[in-house]
């Protein structure tokens, strides 16, 4: 690959994956006070992949830039990403406002253009909204190819080969730059940021911007009318033996 890589990795701060979210009393959203937040697991995999590409192709990668749109605390996930090996970062403060994927993609397009990015690696979905939209939208806005649900990324000559997880198994596509990749869980195992690297990350560049620095109409296209619990399942029973299990299943006409 003769072109130098300018990698952009958008990351999102979400409620920690291990927590069961609670719906707020008003039924308008999820309770966020006093709850542990972390980097979205798929974004962590995206950062890791960018760092691995840099480690494997030192002369090829110009820089890895991470960006996050979120409240002030989203800077924590940027610092973590810097500690893992990203070079520079941008935080776009959105306060408490939720930004829909289409608008996230529009903002990211401007960030990508400013950073002259030619490879953008994102998580395949955020585990809060579960939309699985942003990477594909960004690719559409930029008119770049997209390789979503990546399980393997290889750079050969001037092309990037991506093995994608699809419904019946996997498929491989190849593309020249510029390219958007979204990560599946099996792409890699993210490293932990060491304490010395966390200290060093504090000195790495963190540009601070606000939503109004971008020319994007942020009015919600999708209006949230309510948020509710899924239907609860009725309490089940414990059976004492396989015979009892088979009998119950036959009663239920399940087998």
């Amino acid at each position: 690959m003769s072109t130098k890589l300018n990698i952009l990795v958008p990351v999102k701060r979400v409620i920690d994956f291990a927590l069961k979210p609670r719906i707020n009393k008003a039924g308008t959203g999820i309770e966020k006070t006093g709850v542990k937040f972390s980097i979205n697991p798929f974004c962590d995999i995206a950062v890791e992949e960018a760092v691995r590409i840099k480690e494997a192709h030192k002369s090829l990668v110009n820089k890895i830039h991470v960006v996050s749109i979120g409240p002030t605390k989203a800077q924590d996930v940027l610092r973590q990403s810097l500690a893992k090996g990203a070079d520079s970062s941008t935080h776009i403060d959105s306060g408490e406002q939720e930004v829909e994927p289409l608008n996230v993609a529009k903002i990211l397009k401007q960030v990508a253009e400013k950073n002259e990015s030619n490879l953008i690696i994102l998580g395949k979905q955020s585990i809060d909204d579960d939309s699985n939209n942003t990477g594909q939208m960004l690719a559409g806005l930029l008119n770049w190819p997209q390789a979503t649900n990546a399980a393997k990324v290889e750079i050969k000559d001037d092309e990037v080969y991506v093995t994608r997880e699809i419904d019946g198994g996997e498929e491989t596509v190849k593309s020249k730059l510029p390219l958007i990749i979204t990560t599946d869980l099996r792409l890699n195992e993210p490293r932990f940021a060491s304490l010395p690297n966390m200290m060093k990350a504090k000195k790495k560049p963190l540009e601070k911007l606000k939503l109004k620095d971008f020319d994007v109409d942020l009015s919600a296209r999708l209006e949230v009318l309510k948020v509710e619990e899924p239907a609860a399942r009725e309490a089940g029973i414990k059976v004492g033996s396989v015979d009892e299990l088979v009998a119950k299943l036959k009663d239920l006409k399940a087998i």
Partner: protein
Amino acid sequence: MFSVTRSQFVRSLAAKRFGSTLAFVEANGSEISSASLSALNAAKQLGNPVVAVLLGSGSKSAASQLNKVEGLSKILVSEDSQFDHQLPEYIAPAISQLISNNDYSHFVTSATAVGKNVLPRVGALLDVQPVNDIIKVEDPTTFKRPIYAGNAIVTVKSNDAKILLSTRSTAFEAVPLTASESYPVEEFTPTLEKLPVEWVSENLVKSERPELTSAKIVVSGGRGLKSKENFDKYIFPLADALHAGVGATRAAVDAGYVDNSLQVGQTGKVVAPDLYIAVGISGAIQHLAGMKDSKTIVAINKDEEAPIFNVADLGLVGDLFEVVPELTEKVKA
């Protein structure tokens, strides 16, 4: 002044009400995918005429299968071979051109790997925020969808002029294939710009068993199986005895017990069979997200505190290495 504004308002309402729905149909050869048959059901629930679109070589022969579906208005096909590997770089502009050039008020696709790959790109091209993975149509602009791994259900109203939807196939029954219609088939030729991306190869998992997402019974294994050999020895025979599809947790997939296309959960497949048998599965929220709408859930686990027992209709606390072979023998009998 007021009356003009009002008549414009009424007209725009009427236009919305009498729009039509474009539904993307996936086919394997000439066979329509079951997920697309579910999406067609959701499309019909919107109450507008439904136009189906199929893309790629052989789409004309697949289109004839749609004559077995009741209540469509016409079928659009483009047999351009650029669509053959379902590359979103070509499907998305083709779909967005159809939507821009016609009066479709809605576009519906199933939330399959292909649908998820294509729909947001269409959204970006049309400047529309899609509503993803819907489980219910409340009215033509209001939908329910799960968020936070299915731990909450959000009702959203779309304010976009065109509405783009993907449907969770387990939440909508497939339309029956019992009609004998003869729909007009129209060819169309989208303008496609070549992008520097190419399909290279695929590696599909071949199996005689029912396909996971449409199986009536699913037997799933987790970390408790301890090895690939045990998975093969305990899970597959039970599945075969029940003519069931086989699923797995992320832990089982990561440990290499089975291929990752069998993963059930938030980031894998979502299933809702009549019977789901969870073997050696603790029941993490990410796994529950993919199976908790199953009609009957059976859990076999030696840890009686395992969270899977909170959602199981029938729970058996015991060693799976003893219980599963016994169960396999007894369901065969």
